[in-house]
């Protein structure tokens, strides 16, 4: 388990140093995108429209924050990760299209995304689900907000972060997934669990 500190833009070379179980902290720019922002970004890209900011080398955060407007400035109150598997249907295309190398979320992602990460050299990192106040501490300010019509949880928040983490590398660029390993281990324990409960699987 190695600890790394990265500043955006994060390069393909940077992320290829990482293996599952490593811990990273990110300083620089992170943007949030959940289901609807992923969908909109990809739809716009397909039509050849440009994004409100250049996503390349930034970290995308699966997060719908609690926000507050103080005067004309937005403030992030709580900002933990949301379940990443919902973005499995978009992520391969998203990584490929926008050159995002670091994904931050929770719960891991599926086989299709694991494969895409190996192919396009990106990593998936897990922030502790629900640890919204710890996350908010690493967020210095809201730089920009776009697509507010999607609602405050779903829109695109562009955030300035400092030592944002700890982020545990869950999927690396070598096709390894910590979540898959844990699931495989659990699968191996199934006969033992069955015996304990007096049932067969």
């Amino acid at each position, binding site marked *: 388990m190695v600890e790394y500190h990265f500043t955006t833009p994060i390069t393909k070379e940077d992320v290829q140093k990482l293996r599952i179980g490593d811990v990273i902290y990110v300083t620089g720019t992170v943007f949030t995108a959940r289901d609807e922002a992923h969908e909109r970004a990809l739809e716009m890209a397909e039509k050849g429209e440009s994004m409100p900011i250049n996503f390349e080398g930034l970290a995308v955060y699966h997060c719908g924050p609690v926000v507050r407007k103080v005067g004309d400035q937005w403030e992030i109150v709580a900002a933990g990760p949301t379940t990443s598997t919902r973005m499995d249907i978009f992520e391969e295309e998203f990584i490929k299209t926008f050159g995002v190398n670091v994904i931050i979320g929770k719960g891991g992602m599926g086989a299709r995304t694991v494969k895409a990460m190996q192919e396009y050299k990106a990593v998936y990192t897990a922030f502790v*689900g629900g640890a919204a106040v710890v996350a908010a501490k690493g967020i210095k300010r809201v730089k920009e907000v776009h697509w507010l019509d999607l*609602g405050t949880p779903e829109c695109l928040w562009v955030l300035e972060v400092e030592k944002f983490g*700890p982020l545990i590398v869950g999927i690396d660029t070598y096709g390894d997934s910590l979540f898959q390993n844990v699931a495989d*281990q659990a699968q191996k324990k199934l006969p033992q669990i069955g015996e304990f409960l007096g049932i067969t699987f």
Partner: protein
Amino acid sequence: MTFYTLIEDTTVKLLKFAATQLPNDVSEALKKMQEEETIPPSKAALSTIVDNFGIAEETATPMCQDTGIHIYYVNIGENFPKVIGIEEILRRASARATKEVPLRPNAVNPIVGGNSGDNTGRHIPFINYDFIPGADFLEITVFPKGGGSENMCALGMLKPGQGIKGIKKFVIETIFNAGGQPCPPVVVGIGIGGGADIALKLGKKQLMRPLGQRHPEPEIAKLEEELLEAINMTGFGSMGLGGEVSTALDVKIDYAHRHPASLPVGVAIQCWAARKSTARIYQDGRVEFLTHKED
């Protein structure tokens, strides 16, 4: 202050308590688990969780950005006369707390889209009503339910021949399917029998019981303990990062008699941020908070 304002103000307080402070049984259980866990990623995740709810409580900030969809359990003392308009009062409290705490607006129209912006909408907040025989108070429990864990809930319409073994199997399969997604350590509420909706409602209602408390019937209590141990044997651990003791905090079960032809099993899953708050309001205007302390 009118009685209706008192109910509304108390409910706003309950919503703030629930979002910002874990009930004691939950925070103590998580701290204990953090000490006992041996696998590094899960132990680290639990440390972050403990830090997080500590800061949330100190700063009166929501501990999780998903402040849940608003569910209320309203228990009406049979001798408590003033419940007219309760639904409107609770809706107002949800909208007010959304601004004042603040809470994330989580009420989305599933047909035409769009977030209502204040946590109210058609049938939301959802209110469960019960009567308490002989009581002269109104008891309101606020249960803000997160979406990540809710998405892992499951209903099994088993064949009666599958029996208790079938129930155990369905529960373990549900946990396998969920893995790290519902933000473990989880609390699992299981409802057996009744009917499809009844099983799920009973399952969810079990999440109101304090951690560690066993069902009064010994067969059910034993099943709760067995399933808790079996779920932790899976080794998913906190946040699905792999852990020895931290997949589940507790398992709670209740049942209803079933139709001869059906064996419904409802499995409700709650994340580590097992938030709830309860207060009793008496006729004379006294308010008693059962899960949290007022400043």
